[in-house]
Every structure is written in C-alpha cells, then in structure tokens.
C-alpha cells in the first residue's frame, strides 16, 4: 500500500523553498495521491534557462520502496529525455533508486540532468548524436524547444486572461491577480470574487 502519510509530508516539504530551488510538486487532480505533477525551472547557463518544465509523476503502490515513475510533459530536447514522449533515462529512477530519496530530490536530480547531459547513455539517440557531433546545433535546437514549449505558460496566460475578462472582470485587475497567483486560474478567480 502507498504510504500516504509520507506523500503528504513530502508535498508540504517539497514546496517549502520553491523560490530558491526552482522545484515544486502538486497533486495532479486534487484528490489522487498517486498522481502528482512536478515542475522544475531550467538551470541558468544552459539552453533550458528561462523555461519551466512540467513532469508527470505516478507513484506505484510500493512507493517509496519502488521508484516513482516520472516523465516530462513539457517537450524538451535533451540526450537523456525522449523528444517523442518525455521518457527519462536516469539511474536513480531505475535501479539506483533508494527509499531515502524523495520526490524533491528526484526532481532536483532531473534539474541536474538538464545541466549535465550524459550522451553516452542516451534515451534519445537522435539528440545524443547531435549533441556529440554538432554541439552548437544541439544548443540551438534545445534553446528553440525551450522557447517554444517550456515558456508556453505565458501563451496560456493570454487565454486565461481572456477567459476571466469574459466573466466580466477588468483586464488590468485580471492580469495583476494572475501574476500574483502565478497563473493559477482558480485562485485568481477566488481573489477577484472576494476583492
């Protein structure tokens, strides 16, 4: 059986220093403790800088004695992450998993993976080839993908603004509130209603 008390503690602990760590964890759909969703920010000085990457997290019933299943939802150009489906090749998510690791440390490891690709043990052979043969082109593609897919939060923002404006709130107020709630529509709506 899934250790729910540990997961709940991890959720609280994992979001304590989101600002500095660049890592956050949340329930995927509010009720199911086995389906979470994490985000990491692209490390500074890498082609992923400035991007926010969403990771789908599924907890097996044996968690934390079995590793969590993690997969990138945000498309990313990286030798150890599938450009097709976001599958990740990282030892600690497989045989090197230890129950003493947490979702947060796993996400931090993913962030570290973005900084230090391991093209010799690739998940995506095409990306790894490019990384080894034409590094400049790799950096270009990775940056382009970050711009296109990992910054779409701001694209989504316009839609959210439009939706709330249609509900009858002034656009300035909507933008300000969405800014404050980091794009969380429901919280924004609550604030708009109460204020």
């Amino acid at each position: 059986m899934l250790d729910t008390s540990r997961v709940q503690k991890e959720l609280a602990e994992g979001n304590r220093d989101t600002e500095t760590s660049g890592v956050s964890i949340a329930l995927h759909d509010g009720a199911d403790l086995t389906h979470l969703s994490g985000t990491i920010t692209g490390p500074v000085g890498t082609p992923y800088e400035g991007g926010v990457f969403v990771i789908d997290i599924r907890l097996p019933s044996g968690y934390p004695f079995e590793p969590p299943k993690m997969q990138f939802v945000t498309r990313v150009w990286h030798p150890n992450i599938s450009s097709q489906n976001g599958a990740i090749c990282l030892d600690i998510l497989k045989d090197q998993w230890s129950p003493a690791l947490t979702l947060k440390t796993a996400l931090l490891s993913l962030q570290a993976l973005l900084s230090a690709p391991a093209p010799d043990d690739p998940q995506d052979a095409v990306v790894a080839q490019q990384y080894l043969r034409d590094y400049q082109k790799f950096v270009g593609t990775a940056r382009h993908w970050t711009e296109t897919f990992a910054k779409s939060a701001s694209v989504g923002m316009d839609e959210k603004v439009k939706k709330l404006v249609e509900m009858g709130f002034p656009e300035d107020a909507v933008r300000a509130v969405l800014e404050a709630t980091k794009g969380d529509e429901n919280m924004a709506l609550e604030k708009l209603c109460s204020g």
Partner: protein
Amino acid sequence: MADDVDSPSSSEVEGTEDRYFYLSDQEDDIAENVLQDLEDGQQEDCSWSVSSVITKESLLAAQKVDLRKVMELLALSEHNARTLLIHYRWDVERVFELLEQKGKDRLFSEAGLTIVENKMIDLSSCCDPFTCSICFEEVSPTAVTEMDCGHYYCNECWTEHFIVKINDGQSRRIRCMAPKCNAICDEAIVRSLVSTRHPDIADRFERFLLESYIEDNNKVKWCPSVPHCGNAIRVVGDIYCELECICGKQFCFSCLSEAHSPCSCIMWERWKKKCHDESETVN
C-alpha cells in the same frame, strides 16, 4: 554458412573445433565417481571428485562446506561469507586468489561487504524518539535497526524494503536503503524482520539463498531432467564433460542438452537445428 550447417567438412571436425571434444577415457572416471557418490549416499563431507550429485537434502551441506572455508580463512560471519561468495560466484579458489591480488579491503568492498568496527551511535542507549528518514515517522529507538554499513532506519521500513526486493527476485543481493550505499544487508536481520510479518516470504528468501549455490555458481548446474528430479550436479575441473545424474539423465554439462560426444556442443546445436528445419520439409 548454409553449407556448414548442412555438411560440416571433416577437416573442421578434426581441426579447429578440437577443444570442444571430450576425452572418452575421462568419461569412465566420471561414471565411476557418480556411482561412488551414489554408494556414499548421504555422507556429507565427502571430498568432491570430478563430479558429484547434489540432492535437495545435501544442498545445504554442500554450501556450508564452501562457506566454512571462507569463514575460517577470513574470520567472517556466515552472512558476510555468503555475500562474498555470491559475488564471486561461489568460486572459493578465486576468492583466495583475489585476496592476494587485491587485498582484503578491495575484495570486500567490491562484493558489497562493509564492516564498520565502531558503530557511529549506540542506538540502544539513547532514549530520544528517532525520526526515520524514510517514513518520516517518529519511532522508539528499540524499533530501529542499524546495518553493518552504519545506516539505520525503522524496522517497518526495512521490512517493507526487504519484501519488495524479495518479491522482485533480488534476494541474494538486497542492498542497504541509503542512497549510493553498496552494502548488502545482513541476512539474519532480513530473516528475522520479514518472518515476523510474512513467514511465507521469509521461506522464499531462505530458498533463494540456498539455490544461489547452484544458480550463481559456474561449477554447479541443475540436472536438466524433465520433470525435474530436484538434483544438481557439481564438477571439479573441466566443465566440458558429460555426466549422469542419479535420476538416470545423461547430459552434457556445458550445454545441458543430451550427451553428444564426440560431437562438439556447437556442432550438436547445428545438427539439432538442421533436423528441426528439415523435419518441416520431410513431412
């Protein structure tokens, strides 16, 4: 290639594949030894000759002989000796060889054997509640177990970890739960913690440890009889030989198919393939 399969040339038989042949005079010895083992029956500390049959009953004793050798020479506990032997595929001579080459420390650490002389803290003497870093629960110090490597977690978490690993078929090498810790868990602790909650899984663990002597051992193989007679055969010396199990099954120790001397294993494999392929067209 196709020609080779259909009609191996005689030069090939006599020439390049010489090393796959068995000497027929050795076979008599083998047969004699098997017979002698049969007569010796349950005698446990019989010296291994060219080959011997290990029955379900003598498996434990056979394993103990090797364990004792290593325990005595290296002054190790049984579980540490077993960890070492599983890592080095029950090859006692190789363990002793490597001991000279690499020294004790490297021999041990490569096998996942950690012996901490002075334990970091004395868990039994401190009475503050302890927070397990896996379940994040506070537990009494009496419900905490420390492994040889010095890492300690609550008994509940250890038990859960052991069960997951045993169910995963990793009984022989259950590693400590600490990240990047290579140490193998003490089998006595595994046994006692698991058996209090799941005696059936503890039994399975026991069986896996016992069968490791056969499955992680280059010189011992299960008899290939179908249905399985439950016996295993151990050889000393050349593993390219033919044997007879006490169940009557005659087989080649190297490829486990029926006895096929003087034909080599590779050629026998090709012959069987040829027969199989042809049978489709003959009928």
